[in-house]
């Protein structure tokens, strides 16, 4: 299936893909497959029992990447996929997922993705996910991503999620179970405006000995948008966990940060930090003394904060 200009533009926004991507990829467009490539080490197989794919990364695969973007330009489409990633022992890969919706109609367009990562011993993954919505229609753009992470021993995973514009409603669920000496790092960036709603929920089980996790969330809530961020880190062994939510609140927005840490082992060390506040007047003033207008200063502070 050929992609039109709108779809190509969405691809560039969510996956930095211009033309044909390098390495393994699977492009899903308007609920159907639109292109796929595999490599000697990375295989992509269509699921037979439900919509979605299995991405199988051979043990020892190094310096390879997989792109699995989804683009939707059909108004009213409700797309649902299950993608499973099997990352072999000692593999070191970059996985880029993302969803772009262009909704110019009046119906709600939705994409719900359930991504499950199975990391074998010593696997290392950098996972980047971007969500973006556009289109002048009155229909809502809805995305409800679920990410499940299962890490064996000595694994490392970095999860970067970004949702900057145009998603009216999102419910993001992330569940992780971390094995011995494994580390999970989550960076979340969210900006909501208008009447948008974003609901994020991270649940991490630190099961293995000497495992760790760090959840860092930065968000900006503008206009009358609503944000809820829940983090729940459970230390079930000798481990360390840290969560940090930082939110800038503006206009008539509302932000809830609900951090929870539960230790059930005497050697579990867990910390949570949460802060919500408006842009400090001194910050605006400083940038204005450098020649920026108040609006430009605000934009600089926000873009730096979400960088």
């Amino acid at each position, binding site marked *: 299936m050929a992609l039109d200009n709108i779809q190509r533009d969405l691809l560039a926004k969510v996956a930095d893909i211009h033309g044909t991507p390098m390495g393994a990829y699977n492009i899903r467009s308007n609920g159907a497959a639109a292109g796929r490539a595999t490599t000697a080490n990375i295989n992509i197989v269509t699921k037979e029992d439900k919509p979605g794919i299995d991405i199988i990364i051979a043990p020892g695969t190094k310096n390879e990447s997989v792109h699995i973007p989804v683009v939707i330009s059909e108004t009213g489409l409700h797309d649902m996929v299950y993608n499973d990633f099997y990352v072999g022992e000692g593999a070191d890969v970059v996985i880029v997922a993302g969803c772009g919706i262009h909704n110019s109609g009046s119906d709600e367009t939705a994409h719900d993705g359930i991504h499950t990562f199975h990391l074998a011993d010593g696997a290392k993954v950098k996972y980047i996910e971007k969500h973006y919505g556009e289109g002048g229609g009155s229909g809502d753009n809805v995305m409800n991503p679920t990410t499940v992470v299962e890490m064996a021993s000595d694994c490392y995973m970095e999860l970067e999620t970004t949702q900057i514009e145009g998603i009216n409603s999102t419910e993001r669920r992330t569940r992780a179970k971390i094995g011995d000496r494994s580390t999970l790092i989550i960076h979340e960036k969210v900006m909501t405006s208008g009447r948008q709603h974003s609901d994020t929920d991270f649940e991490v089980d630190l099961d293995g000995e000497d495992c760790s996790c760090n959840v860092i969330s*930065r968000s900006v809530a503008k206009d009358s948008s609503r944000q809820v961020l829940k983090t729940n880190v459970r230390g079930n062994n000798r481990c360390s966990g840290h969560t940090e939510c*930082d939110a800038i609140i503006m206009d008539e927005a509302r932000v809830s940060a609900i951090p929870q840490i539960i230790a059930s082992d005497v050697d579990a060390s867990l910390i949570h930090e949460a802060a919500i506040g408006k842009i*400090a007047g*001194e*910050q605006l*003033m*400083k*940038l*204005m*003394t*450098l*020649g*920026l*207008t*108040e609006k430009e200063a605000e934009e*600089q*502070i926000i*873009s*730096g*904060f*979400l*960088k």
Partner: protein
Amino acid sequence: MLELKNVSFTVDADGERKDILKNVSLKIDGNFTAITGPNGGGKSTLARVVAGIYQPTEGRIFLDGEDITELSVTERAKRGVSFAFQQPVRFKGLTVRDLISIAAGGNVSFSRACSYLSEVGLCAKDYVDREVNSSLSGGELKRIEIATVMARGTKLSLFDEPEAGIDLWSFGNLIKVFENLQTKIGGSIVIISHQERILKIAERIVVLSAGEVVGDGTPEEIMPTLLGGERVCPAIGEKFD
């Protein structure tokens, strides 16, 4: 040239009228001027009134003959007023290079950022990509603050107690920075300071006390009057005699 004509600044503190600046008239033209005086004498307020952060209650401010009294902070900055804060602001996410770029009015290259940072005794390699957040010490922030003013290179640069928070070890370097500042930036340099070594290198010292100009002259004229401690209250005077 900066000119203040009969500038007063009054605040209402708990229903009580407090005059922070009283009828201050001052001309500053193309030299290195230090403003000194006791704490609470109105020095920082004067600098903030010039930068546009505070609006004077009375009086007018002129920059090169143009009345800038009604102009905003941004408009004054664009006309050539720079201000280094006494307590520099921290930003989560903005890097040292971002700040210098904003100050310079466009993206600056590594080597240009390096030249500004090395002037204030920081190695660019270690700092250029650092966030201007709480990981930087007070002294490091002060130096970065000075570097942003250098990057602007405007006709009027105001520094509010640049030496505060800088350790003794680095102080010698800072003096060198200020000795060369006028040739580097050009225009008028105004430094609010209590430090004898900074006052000594100024061409002119203005003494501000209880909101009024009580002294104005060369360091040779003014320094002896400051060190005489004539304004110290009798109880303290006895202890230190």
